[in-house]
């Protein structure tokens, strides 16, 4: 049967939602739903949950590139069929999890995974770096200032040990977003990579008529940097367009989102900022925004060495200096941001000083500071 283009509404089914989750529970989870008593991390990547009933569920977490093929998914299915009664799941950070109900089944599963090259590294639990939440980048999106999957691959290759081992002071939640829309959880991550533009939009006068509602383009700009303008095209036509006061532009890209004739992207202008110290959980300290500590690193495909090294440096400075259970931001708050910059060997610039809406609340309004190397 299938879809009949002649008869699009025939037998149409809508609004049925997703399949019910219970259909996909492994038996041990169905039986022990809401009855779990405690868990252990048996080894990196392997969780053991114990139920009030005494039942056990072993979970093996494997990394995933997230941008994966159906062939790859089918291979996951093969594994799950072989070891896990045909069930697997994905985590909120895009790792895959294979569950078994018996300790004896763990090692065969691990062996199988290990036998498949670099496709299924086991890890990401406990005091580790888990998978990076990330976005589309050049593989799919229209507004990116950097790539996503490639940068993530380059970074995770370099800090791989921290995924497969648990040797950090606490969890490190990383993220990447390819533009300041921040589809990745950049604004509240321990370490985040953020694609940013640094050149004001061009105005494509030849194209603007038709693709863009001028008043919308103007009102898109939060800083009023866009004004209406009359311009004469090469063919002599006078049209309504806009002009941009580059001095007032903060490169947010909202104009481009609203008006395709105002592109910002540029090979030299675009690159990555590094933000650190955000978190989401309310454990110990409440949810916290990430702070922009490195305003710009160039896009240097395919391996973004500057970005990779910056991330690694921060990660390792934290690993070396923080107390147990202290997330990166908690550590920075305790030692003071001036000390953070020093420990991480990051140069400070006025780019990291807020000058947006709520800026005043971030100014240092106390004589309490440390005499770091920043003070000559």
């Amino acid at each position, binding site marked *: 049967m299938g879809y009949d283009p002649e008869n699009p509404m025939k037998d149409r089914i809508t*609004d049925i939602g*997703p399949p019910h989750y219970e259909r996909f529970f492994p038996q041990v989870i169905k039986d022990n739903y809401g009855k779990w008593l405690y868990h252990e991390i048996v080894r990196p990547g392997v969780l053991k949950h114990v139920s009030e009933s005494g039942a056990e569920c072993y979970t093996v977490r494997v990394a995933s590139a997230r941008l994966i093929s159906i062939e790859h998914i089918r291979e996951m299915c093969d594994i799950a069929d072989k070891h896990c009664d045909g069930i697997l799941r994905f985590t*909120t950070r895009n790792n895959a999890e294979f569950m078994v109900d018996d300790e004896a089944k763990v090692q065969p599963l691990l062996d199988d995974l290990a036998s498949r090259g670099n496709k299924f590294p086991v890890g990401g639990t406990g005091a580790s770096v888990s998978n990076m939440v990330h976005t589309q980048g050049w593989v*799919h*999106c229209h507004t990116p200032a950097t790539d996503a999957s490639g940068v993530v691959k380059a970074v*995770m290759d*370099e800090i791989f040990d921290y995924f497969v081992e648990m040797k950090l002071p606490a969890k490190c939640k990383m993220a990447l977003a390819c533009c300041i829309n*921040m589809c990745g959880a950049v604004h509240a991550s321990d370490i985040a990579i953020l694609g940013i533009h640094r050149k004001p939009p061009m105005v494509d006068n030849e194209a603007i008529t038709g693709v863009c509602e001028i008043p919308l383009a103007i009102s898109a700009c939060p800083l009023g940097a866009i004004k209406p303008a009359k311009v004469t095209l090469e063919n002599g036509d006078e049209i309504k367009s806009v002009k941009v006061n580059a001095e007032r532009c903060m490169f947010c890209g*909202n104009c481009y989102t609203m008006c395709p004739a105002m592109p910002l992207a540029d090979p030299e202008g675009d690159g990555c900022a590094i933000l650190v110290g955000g978190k989401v959980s309310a454990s110990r300290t409440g949810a916290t925004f990430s702070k922009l500590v490195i305003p710009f690193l160039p896009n240097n495909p395919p391996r973004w060495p500057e970005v990779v090294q910056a991330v690694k440096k921060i990660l390792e400075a934290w690993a070396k200096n923080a107390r*147990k259970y202290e997330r990166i931001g908690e550590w920075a708050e305790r030692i003071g941001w001036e000390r953070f910059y020093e420990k991480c060997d990051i140069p400070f610039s006025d780019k990291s000083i807020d000058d947006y809406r709520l800026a005043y609340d971030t100014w240092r309004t106390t004589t309490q500071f440390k005499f770091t190397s920043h003070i000559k």
Partner: protein
Amino acid sequence: MPKHDTPLMDELEKGPWPSFVSDLKRQAEKNPECWDILGQMELSYKDKITHWKHGGIVGVFGYGGGIVGRYSDSPDKFPGVAHFHTVRLNQPSSKFYSTEMLRKVCDLWEKHGSGMTNMHGSTGDMVLLGTRTEELEPLFFDLTHELKWDLGGSGSNLRTPSCCLGKARCEWACYDTQAACHTLTMHYQDEIHRPAFPYKFKFKFSGCANDCVASAARSDFAVIGTWRDNIRINQDEVKKYISGELKAGGGIADSFGAFDIKKDVIGHCPTGCMWMEGGDLKIDDAECTRCMHCINVMPRALRPGVDQGATIMMGAKAPILDGAQLATMVIPFVKPTADNDFEDLIEVIEKAWDWWMEFGKNRERIGETMQRVGLPSFLRVMEVEPIPQHVKEPRCNPYVFWEAAEVEGGWDRDIKEFRERHKM
């Protein structure tokens, strides 16, 4: 057989982390358009800009969301991705799958699309990456008829709700996150599929303050489990942590050395409401803010209380345009339950929507509307009694908006009568 030379992409086949490049190549054997994905990406790696055109409005009939349109700016070079639309399938709550169902999705996508996916999108959808406009209706037909599965959200509508795995495999879930997520997803199919809002709106459900679905940072409406009574303590197990018999955090790190309950647990308690007394761990629960830290560190000794429920937070979002927002505590305690189809949540949601749909500006997230009108006004809208829990601290400026009714004599005054007492 590679269609394009991709020396830059090939570099990303090296290294221990799974390679999406190798994967693309593998899939290309079945879906040759994957060569063009690789080719166009290689070009982006060279040019350092995206090669996707701006926007692209496509969809399935009757729905205003679920598909993100995308067109190549170099369709001649890369005809396989000339159209490259994304299809968002609404994932089942907390993303357990039978291989049977997954394989059906794979077959569907092999037939109708590129064979590449995101498992999963940042909002939570299963994202099928790249297909042509003419495939959309057939795909949707097969999806709904054969898989009995539906699209998720995109555009100015309710986005696909998502949740932590909660009671399915976690000992800390204080309400049933999956049931809440699924029930509301089903309840709001219309809002998910047909944009009627000023901008996007996201629900996320976490079973406890650890917030494993990042609801406090990434959803307009976040429901986060908590409890009202006392942390359950098993003092015998406490002693086992102290003696080293049990590992901190169930073995959260291999590098932590000896357990030190004073430093590791009590020392990190944000309220300082814990202490040791004759070998027993004591908690002054009235002062506890249920941050989860002590429970996280000693999962066998401590458990959330039994009077469980959730806190409702609202207004989190990314920075466009006024700066990012974390969610704001709106309702301190509700008991969301499948017994009443989560009507407590529904009531709050609809109060907020009714108001936001009337007063929210175009492309204004509810958090921004909240900021624009101010928290006191928002609480009035929500018919929530203002309590100190709504703020970190009371205001420091004196600029209170009094209403005429609150002030004796109201605002109508006679300047003449005033001038009799107070000459110019």
